[in-house]
């Protein structure tokens, strides 16, 4: 409390000011400031009976079926970027992870590490985004936590979300179900999120109109599930490391080879241009609203039609095939007819000198 009291401005005021516009250390104290933070900012936005009970833990009715649990922690700078913010990522990312397992998302939890000095209006915008994203998916945030750390100890805020969903035998996409002969599909244009964040973060001195593709893929997966069921062999959201990394992981997990078709890759012009300037490969750039699917080869057209029937999948294309040769490797046929490996990167892509 000493930190909060001194920040609040003087010996005459033992109770901290409530009119502050920023997060204070005292907001993590567990005292009145903490209660006010919950009451004024979190509960009105995330309000639902389970959360409002404010118990030490949420109590949930068992819906039956297998439970699927996923947790993810979100760090991004800047917190807001063209097309989204950390709140959108935190909800979409975890819901998408559940959806890729064929699960129906049921509940979310959210944990926040807030940095002292974080402006409330920024926090409010992020919470609004999270509330909207969760409501749109029909998934309540049933438990949560906030901590406050000293200025300089966090990059504005970090968010952890955990999602719980249920899964049935009728739809169980899984990496090892990918087999030779499968078609490899992507649901839309690649490379947008990573380049949008990079342009915002680095203050790149060229104009770009790239926006993040952050989106909840649950409805898109529902369309696939309804039309194809288990002919969908595997689903992955192509987040960190991009499409190339996801496919490498898949090729290794399923012990298959893959051949991609470079001209088929849906790289938007501005992404291609920004990548060319910086010496980056869009195949390795993060997406937050694109899924990669392997589907039975004879169901490829049906799967594409299903994806394209939904707004999130209108640019879906087939980018390659699962092959028996060079197992555990991803190859690519170049536009001019050459061939190369699309390997895992040892670390982040690095912008090159010239």
């Amino acid at each position, binding site marked *: 409390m000493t930190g909060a009291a001194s920040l609040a401005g003087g010996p005459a005021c033992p109770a901290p000011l409530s009119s502050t516009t920023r997060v204070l250390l005292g907001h993590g104290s567990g005292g009145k400031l903490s209660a006010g933070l919950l009451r004024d900012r979190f509960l009105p936005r995330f309000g639902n009976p389970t959360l409002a009970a404010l118990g030490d833990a949420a109590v949930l009715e068992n819906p039956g079926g297998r439970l699927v649990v996923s947790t993810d922690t979100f760090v991004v700078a800047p917190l807001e970027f063209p097309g989204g913010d950390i709140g959108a990522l935190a909800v979409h990312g975890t819901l998408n992870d559940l959806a890729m397992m064929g699960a129906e998302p049921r509940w979310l939890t959210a944990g926040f590490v807030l940095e002292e000095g974080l402006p409330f209006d920024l926090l409010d915008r992020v919470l609004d985004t999270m509330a909207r994203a969760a409501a749109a998916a029909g998934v309540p945030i049933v438990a949560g936590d906030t901590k406050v750390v000293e200025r300089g100890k966090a990059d504005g805020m970090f968010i952890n979300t955990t999602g719980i969903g249920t899964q049935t035998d009728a739809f169980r996409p899984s990496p090892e179900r990918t087999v030779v002969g499968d078609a490899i599909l992507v649901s839309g244009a690649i490379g947008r999120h990573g380049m949008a964040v990079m342009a915002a973060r680095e203050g790149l001195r060229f104009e770009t109109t790239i926006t993040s593709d952050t989106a909840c893929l649950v409805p898109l997966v529902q369309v696939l599930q309804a039309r194809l069921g288990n002919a969908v062999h595997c689903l992955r959201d192509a987040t960190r490391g991009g499409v190339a990394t996801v496919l490498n992981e898949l090729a290794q997990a399923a012990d298959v080879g893959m051949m991609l078709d470079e001209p088929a890759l849906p790289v938007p012009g501005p992404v291609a*241009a920004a990548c060319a300037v910086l010496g980056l490969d869009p195949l390795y750039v993060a997406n937050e609203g694109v899924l990669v699917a392997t589907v039975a080869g004879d169901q490829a057209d049906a799967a594409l039609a299903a994806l394209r029937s939904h707004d999130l999948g209108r640019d879906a294309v087939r980018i390659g095939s699962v092959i028996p040769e060079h197992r555990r490797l991803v190859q690519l046929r170049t536009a*001019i007819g*050459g061939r190369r490996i699309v390997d895992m990167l040892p670390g982040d892509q690095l912008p090159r000198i010239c």
Partner: protein
Amino acid sequence: MKYLAEYQDPDLARALIARIRATATRRWVLMEVCGGQTHTIVRQGIDELIGDRVEMIHGPGCPVCVTPLEQIDRALHVATRPEVIFTSFGDMLRVPGSHTDLFHVRAEGGDVRVVYSPLDAVDLARAHPNREVVFFAVGFETTAPANAMAVWRAHQLGLTNFSVLVSHVTVPPAMTAILDSPDNRVQGFLAAGHVCTVMGWEEYEPLAERYRVPIVVTGFEPVDILEGIAMAVAQLEQGRCEVENQYARSVRRDGNRAARELVARVFRIVDRQWRGVGTIPASGLGLRPAFAAFDAEAKFDLAGIRAEEPEACRAGDVLRGRLKPHECPAFGTECAPEHPLGAPMVSSEGACAAYYNYGRTRLPIANPT
């Protein structure tokens, strides 16, 4: 995208491949000078597509690769100083020095930052008057104008907390060294389009004439490279040895005069050590005495730092075209992008990394995964 898509056109590329195959009546050995070109060749599979009549040797034009180990060690040393903000282009961060790299220095508390322009480093120096901002000025003639501009700007602003660790090299002396080498196999060159955008091609004319080699100033997209190869092969078949310009949309004979003048104002020609190759006389750029105040080497007393290159790394032979990357005994075993022995395995433009990342299935080596 204009100026990009048309140079990736598959039909044009196929026509050029057919032309190269039809023109070459015997085996010719060409060197593409620039690492960006190597990257395109291996990434697009051009080396496979053009057939056996034309062999591409990958030249020394990767700035990350030729920066000598001791210069990396000097960078690492200065980056650990608490008062220093060390700034660099991104791909220098993973280059291994004798004991560590800039990523590890940063993890251990060094203030190492990636910048996209050297002028960003000057801005950092203005914003942090109590810190010393050092920029790692590496590269060929391509990056020299922007780096010269940074020094010039700092000079105009009267900044005393900005300096550059210079490791600039120039292309023509390296080509001369390759051609003078007794076991040289190179019969023609694709010169680096970006370098010539700055410098023009006048300085290549004496080389073509003296050594009787065709030199084609070439761009970086697949169609550029294939057209450059086709032009060089045509010259060889016809017994010509001229400097030709494939990259006409960017390069003029006298280059970019303003950029050249700026480079000449700030830098002078010096002897430079090339990683794996050794010292080549008059092959680099150093700061003129008038700008000595911006020389990080003097400011932080780095000249005493010396380094020996690891014996297992044959980067020098690769950079001189004597050895194909996969012919090196350490390739893919002791040396891989995750644990590189030498710089050509680090930079995405390095010949070893290009072979490792893009070409493994074509190569007669065990699959290391």
